[in-house]
């Protein structure tokens, strides 16, 4: 019988916090890293680039800044897609990879590493196969002209399993010295190689997030089930397609530059549910901001905790899971019925 806030919109103070916190964290993350740069030099590198050494300039502007921006968008994309999928599939256990995005992207990356020589082809191949996986899930789940929720989830599970098997085949075929490490690292997720050219992926991520953000109140209605949503005056097919497309494009663009980070899309939305409730009008913006903040902090830890960088996918699960269990105990459940 928890009381929840009445209004359908976030209050202005909270809205400001949701926008300011990720920006602040991006800024803060510029001050940390293995290569030691004094705070004064970091500020100079940003404000008066001429006044610092080229090495400092490179570390701050070419390495840390694009990395933090990428982490923010990847976190936001995975988290908001997870939140949207949970609602429209009426299933709190669903995450951003439900329609096969992650495994599709993984296979695309493996394929490029093994047969296309790696490099930039990895990004294009993983993006293309991520989209392909979702399209395949959609058609696999399409039974006699309607795409029901359950059949779509089953279709996604089948396509995921299929691509997961293909990933294994690729690992089997890969050269164990020159190619297998690359595959393994990709599948564990990392922002280590991010530079400005990768930030092209920010555009599709931003568009995907925007599509979900704009549809956020209608996602509430979609979570009532197809028949009810239709009777309430929502064109179910159109909105489902829009939300799934938005979430898919965002996730696929995220995964293709970061590798597989599966955990965020399940748990960050639930943390959002605990904090703000289940109304997607508020949950979607909160998920975007929380996902971004979480990923910036995780990446910061990944690249500064130990002398060699930790894979971020692993770090997210190792730090995030106990934190989630703690929240669950503290809030006594309450995110789902």
């Amino acid at each position, binding site marked *: 019988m928890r009381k*929840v806030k009445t209004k359908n919109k976030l209050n202005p103070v909270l809205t400001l916090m949701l926008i300011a916190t990720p920006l602040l964290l991006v800024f803060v993350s510029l001050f940390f890293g293995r290569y030691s740069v004094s705070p004064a030099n970091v500020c100079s590198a940003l404000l008066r680039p001429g006044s610092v050494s080229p090495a400092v300039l490179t570390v701050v502007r070419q390495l840390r800044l694009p990395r933090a921006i990428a982490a923010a968008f990847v976190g936001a994309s995975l988290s908001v897609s997870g939140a949207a999928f949970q609602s429209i599939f009426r299933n709190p256990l669903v995450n951003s990879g439900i329609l096969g995005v992650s495994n599709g992207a993984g296979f695309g990356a493996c394929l490029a590493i093994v047969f296309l020589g790696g490099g930039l082809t990895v990004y294009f191949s993983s993006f293309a196969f991520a989209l392909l996986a979702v399209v395949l899930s959609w058609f696999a789940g399409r039974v006699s002209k309607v795409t029901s929720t359950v059949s779509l989830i089953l279709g996604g599970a089948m396509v995921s399993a299929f691509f997961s098997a293909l990933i294994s085949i690729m690992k089997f075929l890969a050269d164990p010295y020159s190619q297998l490490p690359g595959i393994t690292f990709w599948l564990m997720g990392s922002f280590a190689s991010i530079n400005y050219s990768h930030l092209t992926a920010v555009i599709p991520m931003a568009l995907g997030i925007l599509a979900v953000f704009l549809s956020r109140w209608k996602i509430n209605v979609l979570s*009532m089930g197809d028949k009810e949503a*239709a*009777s*309430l*005056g*929502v064109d179910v097919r159109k909105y489902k397609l829009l939300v799934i497309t938005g979430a898919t494009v965002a996730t696929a663009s995220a995964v293709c530059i970061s590798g597989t980070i599966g955990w965020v899309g399940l748990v960050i939305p639930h943390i959002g549910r605990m904090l703000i409730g289940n*109304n997607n009008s508020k949950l979607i913006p909160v998920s975007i901001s929380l996902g971004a903040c979480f990923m910036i902090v995780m990446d910061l830890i990944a690249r500064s905790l130990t002398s060699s960088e930790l894979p971020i996918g692993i770090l997210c699960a190792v730090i995030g899971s106990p934190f989630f269990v703690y929240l669950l105990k503290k809030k006594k459940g309450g995110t*789902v*019925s």
Partner: protein
Amino acid sequence: MKYKVDSLSFSYKDLNILNNISFEINSGEAVCLIGPNGSGKTTLLDCVMGLHIPQQGAVTVEGRNVLDFSRKDLARFVSYLPQTHMPMFPYTVREMVLMGRSAYSGVFGQPGADDEKFADEAISSVGIESLALRQYTSLSGGEIKLVLLARALAQNAGLIVLDEPTASLDLKNEYEFLETLFSLIRERDISVLMATHSIEQAFRFEEAGISAETLMMRKGREPLKGAPSDVITSGSIGEVFGVSALISTATGESGRQFRSVSVTGKAD
């Protein structure tokens, strides 16, 4: 507002469900659908909501076929109260009722101050103000039905379609739900199309002075149609439900008469 079902026939593949069904619902009137399981009550409701395409005939609102409406436009004329309902996520009661305003919001719209006012007004007109901030999933069965009724009211449609609204409610909740529904029909001139397993509810409409044409559905055959007391007889119950039944009348203290149906055995 006039809602009309005109010689409607519908089959799933080869299975004929609805056969030549016609009726009209005017403002402030009700139509009750009764009949055994699988006799096509829910199918007929779905046709009225434009969710099925009938092989013959049509459902019209103010002379316009429901299939020619967009979902959004139709939702302004027809609202729906589902039979069973348990959402995955615990929205608050107010958030649930606010969803009734979907048909009035833009493509990417959020509900505005007007919509919130409509929702609050709907909440108070079914008398559940005290529940407004509660989680919907923590409510009792009777309360849930009132929330769904409030949501249908917030939709501000002329016709409310109800599918077994009182199934699984206890006596008091059933009584209160029906009384709330009756007062809404009287005060707001709403039309009601209600499928029910509880045959006696058709009598309740009649006893409350609300015109309630009753259709006794017979799968694949034309339904029996007329006033509740004409349609619900031991003869028709025997034929359609396969049980022999007695219709009895009890007189209350104020002289009001109440009819009830007692099943006495299987029909021969």
